Structure formats: structure tokens, C-alpha cells
């Protein structure tokens, strides 16, 4: 395994071109993920969290492209990588688990064959590949790996399919697995099972994990570090408890207060964030949250610098929440 971070993003900017005009979907994202680290990417629709992941995977839609910055996975610069080489990285170094396993799996191919196909593409031999298939299916808690390997995707439940996806990701023993909202389509009891599974797998294999979600509560029980995105930028990141208990960015704070309290005995009005999320047509300079921020000042028209708070807790805000030290 290479020394240094498994993923290093520096000033990553991904843009869409609409009728000749270029709009940034993700802007100036800078971040390191160390081996074995678990990072949660949190944000609402349009925050850029999914685009960031697709930029890393090299799976952007046709009119979307990384326009500046760099992404380095396990020491390999991904910018400008030929598609052949990218395919080698994907799977072996980098894997992704999608939100909808049904559309990520080939409906007419048996589960075992689909997992083995990935293995063979990366050089595994027949019997060895079959053995690996059985092992990883067992690893993800599938009760009867032999039988499931012979099944088709539609014969499995949503939870089982997501387990299969995770098994596929694990099969090549990558250094980083990206989970893109993998439980959104699942029921809560099944979501809890998957969460527990991922937690156990991490404990056993120490693979670095990026978990993309809009659910702060969910991710808080899994990750070490939380990255909050808004309007295509990272607005705050830091250790999970720090960020959740003493957020510094006004957006993080607003988001937290909008969550319905799960255990309070009184039911107050939920806190709201005025306005709506930024759209592509909005001006893309300055703090993206300033239009909805009740604390916005003139300076917010310029993008604030990244302030480092306590070790490894950083944020970009002109009017951060003061922390009573």
C-alpha cells in the first residue's frame, strides 16, 4: 500500500457546460483522506457531494468535466488519465456503492458471474475468482453464498442487493470505497443492518470509506470526520462530534436545527432556513450560503478563506459561530 493519503483532492473544480456557458457544480474542493479513515460527506440536493464523487470515479456525464484542480488516488493523478488506466484504478484501488443497486447490477447476469467478471478483468483466474466470490458474499453477511451467486438481481431483496454491491466493491480489496447514499432506498431496519455491516467490515479490513448522505444522524454513527458541502463548496469539515455539537459555519448550524428532535418531549416549530438552495443560475462568487444566511454581511460577497479552528476542524465563514472556549 502506498504511503500518504488514499485520496487527495486539491482545488477540484467540476463544471457543466450549458449552451456554451460554463457553470461550476463543484468548486475548489480540497481534502485529504488517510488510509483507513471514515469520512462522511453531508449536504442537501445540489450541494455537489455526488458530483465530487463522480469526478473522482471519472464517471461524469458527457457535458460535465473536471475543469481544474487535481485528484490523486493512492499516488495516481487522475486528471488526464486514459480511460484504460482509469478502468484499472476503478475496482482495484477505488470502488463505489451506488444508491440504487437494481440499476447498478446487470439484470440478466447471475450475481456470482457479475462479481467474478470484475475479478477476472483485474487478472484473477477461474477457480480463484469463484472462491473469492463465495468469500466476499459470506463477508457481507449473505447467508447462503453458493445459492445467491447463482441468483439474478431481481430475485433478491433491496437489502440483499446492496450487500451484493458491497461485496463487489470489497472483492478487489480497494484502498477506498465510496458509498453514495447507499441506504436511501432501503427501509430503516435494513439500513441499520447495512450500517452495522459496513462498520464491521471496516473494523476487519480498515479500508478507507467515504459515505455520502443527506442524513447527518445516520452518518454520525459511522464516520470519524464530517465534510459539509453547500453550493458546490466544502463549507465546514472536522471530527464528527465537533462539527455536530459545535458547528462553526452558519449553514451547518441551520441544518442541524432543522432536524426534527427525536427524543424531545415538546414539539416546537422546527427551525427553517429561509430561501431555497442555490441554483446553477446564481452568481457563483462569494459564500454560496449568503443569500439565505440571516447573519450575512457585505464581506460574504467574497469567498471566505478556510479558517482552521481546532486541529482538523476547518470552515469557510466570515461570521462564524463563536465557540465559548
Amino acid at each position, binding site marked *: 500500500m502506498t504511503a500518504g493519503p488514499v485520496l487527495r483532492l486539491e482545488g477540484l473544480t467540476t463544471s457543466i457546460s450549458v449552451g456554451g456557458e460554463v457553470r461550476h457544480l463543484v468548486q475548489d474542493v480540497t481534502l485529504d483522506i488517510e488510509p483507513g479513515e471514515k469520512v462522511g460527506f453531508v449536504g442537501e440536493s445540489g450541494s455537489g457531494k455526488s458530483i465530487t464523487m463522480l469526478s473522482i470515479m471519472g464517471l461524469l456525464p458527457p457535458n460535465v468535466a473536471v475543469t481544474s484542480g487535481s485528484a490523486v488516488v493512492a499516488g495516481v493523478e487522475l486528471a488526464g488519465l486514459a480511460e484504460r488506466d482509469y478502468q484499472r484504478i476503478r475496482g482495484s484501488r477505488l470502488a463505489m456503492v451506488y444508491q440504487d443497486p437494481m440499476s447498478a447490477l446487470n439484470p440478466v447476469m447471475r450475481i456470482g458471474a457479475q462479481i467474478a467478471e470484475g475479478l477476472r478483468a483485474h487478472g484473477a483466474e477461474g477457480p480463484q475468482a469463484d472462491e473469492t466470490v463465495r468469500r466476499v458474499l459470506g463477508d457481507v453477511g449473505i447467508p447462503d453464498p453458493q445459492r445467491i451467486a447463482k441468483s439474478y438481481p431481481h430475485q433478491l431483496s433491496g437489502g440483499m442487493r446492496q450487500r451484493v454491491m458491497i461485496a463487489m466493491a470489497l472483492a478487489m480489496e480497494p484502498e477506498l470505497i465510496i458509498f453514495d447514499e447507499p441506504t436511501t432506498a432501503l427501509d*430503516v431496519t435494513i439500513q441499520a443492518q447495512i450500517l452495522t455491516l459496513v462498520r464491521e467490515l471496516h473494523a476487519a479490513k480498515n479500508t478507507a470509506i467515504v459515505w455520502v448522505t443527506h442524513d447527518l444522524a445516520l452518518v454520525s454513527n459511522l464516520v470519524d470526520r464530517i465534510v459539509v458541502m453547500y453550493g458546490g463548496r466544502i463549507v465546514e469539515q472536522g471530527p464528527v462530534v465537533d462539527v455536530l455539537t459545535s458547528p462553526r459555519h452558519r449553514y451547518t448550524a441551520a441544518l442541524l436545527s432543522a432536524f426534527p428532535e427525536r427524543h424531545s418531549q415538546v414539539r416546537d416549530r422546527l427551525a427553517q432556513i429561509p430561501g431555497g438552495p442555490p441554483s446553477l443560475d446564481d452568481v457563483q462568487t462569494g459564500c454560496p450560503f449568503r443569500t439565505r444566511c440571516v447573519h450575512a454581511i457585505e464581506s460574504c460577497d467574497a469567498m471566505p478563506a478556510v479558517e482552521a479552528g481546532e486541529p482538523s476542524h476547518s470552515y469557510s465563514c466570515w461570521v462564524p459561530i463563536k465557540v465559548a472556549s
Partner: protein
Amino acid sequence: MTAAVSVRELSRTFRRGRRSAAVQALRGVSLSIEPGETLGVVGESGCGKSTLARLIARLDEPTTGTIEILGDDVTHMHGQELRQLRRSVQMVFQDPYASLNPRRRVGTAVEEVLKVHKLADSPAGRAERVDELLGLVGLDPGLASRYPTELSGGQRQRVGIARALAIEPSIVIFDESVSSLDVSVQAEIINLMVALREQLDLTYVFISHDLGVVRHIADRIAVMYVGTIQELGTWTQVSDDPVHPYTRALLDAVPHMRLDDQAGPQETPVLGEIPNPADPPTGCAFHPRCPHATALCSEERPALRAVADRLVACHLAAEFVEQ
């Protein structure tokens, strides 16, 4: 006092094809909702909560059982009678993108309701009422000339609510109406629902898979599992002091915000899969996944019985209360 909604032994079976097994979406559900009350219905996929909503809204007809709305039996209403019933019961759908006709301006969509039900005498009166309704749900009346695609998800859901309210119903059913919204927008809509309920003296049926959200708005909560009610009680009873093992499993599965370094792994999640409603387990539907299940649980379906001031369908309910 007449119940706003009263359903008895409601069942609904769907038959997809001649050969495939019938899906028992709802299996003998009885409950009643008092005027002004909000009943939350929570459960996972296949539990029948949406079927229940559609039956109460009479968008669907039950296979067996009866539905009474404000004391009238509406179980098998049709045609004009049914359209008249819509004056009392309205439904707000899950997907604000899909529940508005993309080709009609939102103002027109709301006005159409007034026109069809002759709720204003003149075009001017209607326009005025449309502005009023949009204002009621917190929308700028200027948005009336927009098309749904030009609005955000939250704005669209507000239009959906305005349209349902245009008819001045006494009962509104929300079927997963905030599920597809972002957290911050979800909060706005929930706040709006609560405000409207007070302002217009409405009765709500609030369907969601998210116990956290249901808990925030419902007076009473019904927990459903594979077509049946497992537990029905006040919001504090169900969400803070559950009796049924399924309710407890459901609560445990809902992620809690971790606010200290210790939180670590939560309780072991409930094992197993949600049963296929085309082939539900015998006895108590939850018994294959229940850590406390006895032989009785697999043989006899427990009735919904009063235990500790709420209704629970569990053979072992009394024992759990004693503990």
C-alpha cells in the same frame, strides 16, 4: 361526537395476474380518528400504510371492510357521490414533481379546483381566492403564473397543499408528503402543516416511514407491519415507551444523532428481511424476526388489544409491560 374517519376490518388484496399470488396489502385494519386529531401512520415498505391512505381518500376501494367519513359510509361510493366526498377528504402526495400537471401553471391548477367545485362565483373572485390560498401556504402570489418545473421542490409541495386546501376539506391525508424533500425544506413544510392544522381546524392522516418526522406532528401513531397495525397509541407512548417488539426494533433502527465520542455502535439491529406481502408469515407477521417469539406467535395472529393505555398486537405484550 362523530369520528372524522372510522375504518373497520379494512382489507385490500391486489391481484396482478392470474398466475401470480395475490398481494395482501392490508389485512383487517380498524381505527378511528377524531376531528382535529392527527394520526401518524408509520411503517416500512409493504406495510400497507399507503394503501390505507388511498382507501381513506377513496382513491381505491377496499376488498372487505368499511370506511366511514364524518359518519357516512363511503366504502363503495362511486361517480358523483364520490366526487362530492372529495369536498371532505383531500390527499397530498409524496412527489410534488409528479402530482402537478407539468403543462399547467400553478395558478391555473389551483383555480381549476375552485372552478370544478364552483367555490367562487366570478373569475375575479377565483383569482382573489387563488392569491389567498397561495398566501396561506406561504407562497408569493406572483408564482401563480409559473409552471411547476420552475419551482423548487418545497414550493411545489406548497402548491400541492394549497390545491388540496382550495376545496376546504376537513380531512387531509399526507402520503409521504415530506419524504422526498431536503431536511431544511422538510422542516418548512412540517411547520406549515402544523400551522394550517391550527388555523383551519383540520384532521390529518400523516403517513411516513420516518418515525422522527411522524413523531413531530402526530397526536397518535399507528405502527404498521405487513398489512396490519402492530401498535397504536399517543405519540409519546409509541415513540418513547414502545411495547411491541417491532416498534422497538423500528425505533432502534432510526439513527440517533451522535453527540458524544462514546456513542459508538448502536444496539444490534433487528435481523432478517421484511416479508413479502404476497406471502406473509403465519401468526404474528413479525415473529420470524422477533427475538422474543414463541411457538404461539407463529401459530396465532395476535389481536390488537389494549395494553398499557394503548393498543398492541402482541401475545407477549403484557409481559413486556411488566418488565
